[in-house]
C-alpha cells in the first residue's frame, strides 16, 4: 500500500497496539500530526509541556506494562523530553519517544529548531535512531518497541526528519512483524548452587525490587518465599509487589526504609536479591554492607552483577522464569525466630517514630504521615499512589499500606521533581477504573503544574493531595541535620493553589486544622472528577528512620 511516511508512522503505532500517545505538536512533526487527525484507533493526549508528555508515557508504561509513547517536535520540543528520558533510563521504563527533525537536507546547517537530539540522548537511551527515509519507518518503529521491551526495559528515541514524514513509501505490514519474542531465555544454570545456599541458610532474606513487578512475578515470589519461609523486604520500586499485610513482608529497604529491614541486612546469612540493583540509596556505605552474608543475585541485566556489591551466585533472567525454576529446587522451611526479629525491631520503630508520626496531639500542625496513613485506611490500600520526589515521597512509601501490585509509581533513580502529576495522567489512561491519587509537595507541584489543564481537557479523575510545608522539605531536613541549619533558598512563597486549580475548573479544598482532615479526605475521595486537597503540614517535619549519606545500614538512626 502506497502512503506518506507520516501515515506509516500512525499505521505502525496502531499495529503495534498503541492506544494512547502523549505529545505536543510543532513545525517539524506537523505531517505526523496531520496523519493523527483522522486516526480513530489512536487517542492523542495534548500535554502542556513536553516533559509532561514523556513522564505521562512513563506513568502509562509503569501501570500497563506496555510501551508508553510520546511525540514532540524538533529542537526545543525534543530537548524538553531529555529529563523524562533520563528518568526512564534509570528506572528501566519502556517508552518510545518520537521526535520530529528538520529536513535531512538542512541537518547540520543550524536550521530553525534543529537540535542533535540523537547525539544528545545516546547516554540516556537504550537505543536511538534517526530516520531520514520514509521506507525505514515501519521496520525501525517495530525495532524501537522490541528494544524498549526486550531484556531490561528502557527508553528508545526515534528522530524522524520532516522529509521522511512527507516522503512516499510502500507500507508492508510484514516489516512490523520481524520482532516477536521479548523474553530473554534464562542462560546460566546456577539453580543448584542457589538452592543449596537457600536450603542451608539459617537467616535468609529476600530483597524484592522493580524487576519482580516488571516480570509480573508477584505470585511466583509469594509462592517461593512462603515455601522456604523467607522474609521479604522491598526496595522503593519493589513496593506493592507483595501486600504489606503479608506475614512475610518485613519493610522497605534504603535510606528512609524501615528500621529492622535495614539493620538486619547486616545479620542475614543469605541475601536473595531479585530484580534490584544495590543502588547507593539502598546500600549506604558499601564497606559495611552485608559483609557476613552470602548473596544470590537474580537480575535480567548482567551488568548489575558485582557492580556495587560482590555476590556469590548470579542468575541472569526474567524474575518470573527464574523464581518458578528455583521453586522446584528448594525445600519447605520456616524461619519464625528470624522473622520475629524484624517484628521486634518494627515494634521499636513504631514506638519511637511511627506512633508519633501518625497521631496528632492537640495544637500540633498536621503531619504528612497522618494524611497518608488516614488515606491508606480510607482507601483500604486499593489506590494507585503516584508520588513526587522528596519528604512526602518517602512518607507515602512508608505509610501507605499497598495491597495490589503496580500501585506505587514514583521517580526513584533520577528523582525527578514534577513527576507525579504527568505520571498520574498516564497511569489513569492505563487503568481508568482504578483510583489514582497524586501525593505531591508544594515544590514539585509547581514544576509541572501546567498539566492540570490535561485533567480538565481529557475529563480525567485524578485526586491530588498537596502536602504543603512551604519548603523544599527534604533539602531543608538535610540543611538542618548536616548544614548547621543554614536554610539556603529552601523556603517557598507559594501562590494560592486552590485558586490555580479553580482556574483550571478543578475544585479544591484547603485545610490547616487536624480536625478537618477526616472530612476533607472523604470529600476528596467522593469527588466526581479531579480534586485538589491542599493540606498545610508542619514545616519542621523530618523523615526518620534515616541512613545518613556515607554511613552504613547498621548506623540507621531513629531520630
Amino acid at each position, binding site marked *: 500500500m502506497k502512503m506518506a511516511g507520516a501515515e506509516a508512522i500512525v499505521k505502525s503505532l496502531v499495529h503495534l497496539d498503541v492506544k494512547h500517545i502523549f505529545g505536543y505538536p510543532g513545525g517539524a512533526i506537523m505531517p505526523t500530526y496531520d496523519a493523527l487527525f483522522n486516526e480513530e484507533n489512536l487517542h492523542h493526549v495534548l500535554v502542556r509541556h513536553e516533559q509532561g508528555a514523556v513522564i505521562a508515557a512513563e506513568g502509562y508504561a509503569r501501570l500497563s506494562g506496555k510501551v508508553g509513547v510520546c511525540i514532540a517536535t524538533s529542537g526545543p520540543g525534543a530537548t524538553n523530553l531529555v529529563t523524562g528520558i533520563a528518568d526512564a533510563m534509570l528506572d528501566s521504563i519502556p517508552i518510545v519517544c518520537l521526535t520530529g527533525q528538520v529536513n535531512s537536507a538542512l541537518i547540520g546547517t543550524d536550521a530553525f529548531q534543529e537540535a542533535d537530539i540523537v547525539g544528545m540522548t*545516546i547516554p540516556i537511551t537504550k537505543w536511538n535512531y*534517526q530516520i531520514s527515509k520514509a521506507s525505514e519507518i515501519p521496520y525501525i518503529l517495530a525495532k524501537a518497541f522490541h528494544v524498549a521491551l526486550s531484556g531490561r526495559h528502557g527508553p528508545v528515541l526515534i528522530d524522524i526528519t520532516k522529509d521522511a514524514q512527507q516522503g512516499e513509501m510502500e507500507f508492508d505490514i510484514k516489516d512490523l512483524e520481524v520482532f516477536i519474542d521479548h523474553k530473554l531465555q534464562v542462560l546460566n544454570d546456577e539453580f543448584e548452587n542457589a538452592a543449596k545456599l537457600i536450603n542451608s541458610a539459617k537467616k535468609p532474606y529476600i530483597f524484592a525490587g522493580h524487576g519482580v513487578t516488571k516480570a509480573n512475578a508477584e505470585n511466583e515470589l509469594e509462592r517461593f518465599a512462603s515455601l522456604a519461609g523467607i522474609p521479604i523486604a522491598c526496595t522503593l520500586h519493589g513496593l506493592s509487589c507483595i501486600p504489606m499485610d503479608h506475614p512475610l513482608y518485613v519493610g522497605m529497604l534504603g535510606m528512609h526504609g524501615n528500621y529492622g529491614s535495614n539493620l538486619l541486612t547486616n545479620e542475614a546469612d543469605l541475601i536473595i536479591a531479585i530484580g534490584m540493583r544495590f543502588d547507593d540509596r539502598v546500600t549506604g556505605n558499601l564497606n559495611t554492607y552485608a559483609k557476613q552474608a552470602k548473596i544470590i543475585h537474580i537480575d535480567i541485566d548482567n551488568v548489575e552483577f558485582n557492580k556495587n556489591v560482590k555476590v556469590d551466585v548470579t542468575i541472569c533472567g526474567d524474575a518470573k522464569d527464574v523464581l518458578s525454576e528455583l521453586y522446584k529446587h528448594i525445600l519447605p522451611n520456616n524461619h519464625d525466630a528470624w522473622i520475629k526479629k524484624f517484628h521486634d525491631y518494627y515494634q521499636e520503630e513504631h514506638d519511637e517514630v511511627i506512633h508519633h508520626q501518625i497521631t496528632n496531639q492537640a495544637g500540633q500542625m498536621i503531619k504528612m504521615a497522618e494524611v497518608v496513613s488516614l488515606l491508606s485506611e480510607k482507601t483500604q490500600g486499593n489506590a494507585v499512589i503516584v508520588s513526587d520526589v522528596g519528604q512526602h515521597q518517602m512518607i507515602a512509601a512508608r505509610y501507605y499500606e499497598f495491597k495490589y501490585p503496580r500501585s506505587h509509581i514514583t521517580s526513584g533513580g533520577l528523582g525527578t521533581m514534577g513527576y507525579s502529576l504527568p505520571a498520574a495522567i498516564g497511569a489513569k489512561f492505563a487503568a481508568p477504573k482504578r483510583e489514582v491519587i497524586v501525593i505531591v509537595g508544594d515544590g514539585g507541584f509547581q514544576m509541572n503544574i501546567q498539566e492540570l489543564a490535561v485533567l480538565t481537557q481529557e475529563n480525567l479523575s485524578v485526586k491530588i493531595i498537596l502536602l504543603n510545608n512551604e519548603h523544599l522539605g527534604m533539602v531543608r531536613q538535610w540543611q538542618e541535620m548536616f548544614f548547621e541549619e543554614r536554610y539556603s533558598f529552601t523556603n517557598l512563597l507559594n501562590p494560592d493553589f486552590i485558586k490555580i486549580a479553580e482556574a483550571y475548573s478543578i475544585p479544591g479544598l484547603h485545610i490547616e486544622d487536624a480536625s478537618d482532615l477526616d472530612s476533607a479526605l472523604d470529600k476528596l475521595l467522593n469527588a466526581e472528577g479531579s480534586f485538589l486537597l491542599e493540606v498545610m503540614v508542619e514545616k519542621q517535619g523530618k523523615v526518620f528512620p534515616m541512613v545518613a549519606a556515607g554511613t552504613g545500614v547498621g548506623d540507621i538512626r531513629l531520630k
Partner: protein
Amino acid sequence: MKTDLNKHDEFVNTNMYVLSIITQNTLFVLQRVAGMFSRLRINIEHINISRHSDPLSYWNVVVYSTDDRVWLLIKQLNKIIELVDVKIIDKMPMTSLRKPVIDDRL
C-alpha cells in the same frame, strides 16, 4: 597518607588492555562506543578503526584501567545494539611497563 596508599594500590592493579571491538558501520556508532568509555572515566590511549567488510567496523582500543572497571565496560558495551563483538586481546600489568614511583617514607 591514606589516599596516597590507595593511589599506589590503584597503580599496582592497573593494567594496559588492548580491546578488539566489532561494530556495525553506522552514524553515531563512534559516539556510542566512545561515550561508554568516558562514562566510566576510562581514557582512550590509542584507537584505530577501519572498515574491512562492508557493514562492519573493526576497532582496536588501548586503555589503562583495572579488571573490575574493564569488565563493567565490556558488559556495558555489549548492550549497544550496533555492537557485534568485544573482547580483550591483550593485557599487561602497568608495573611491567613502568617502575612505580613510591615514596619510601610511607
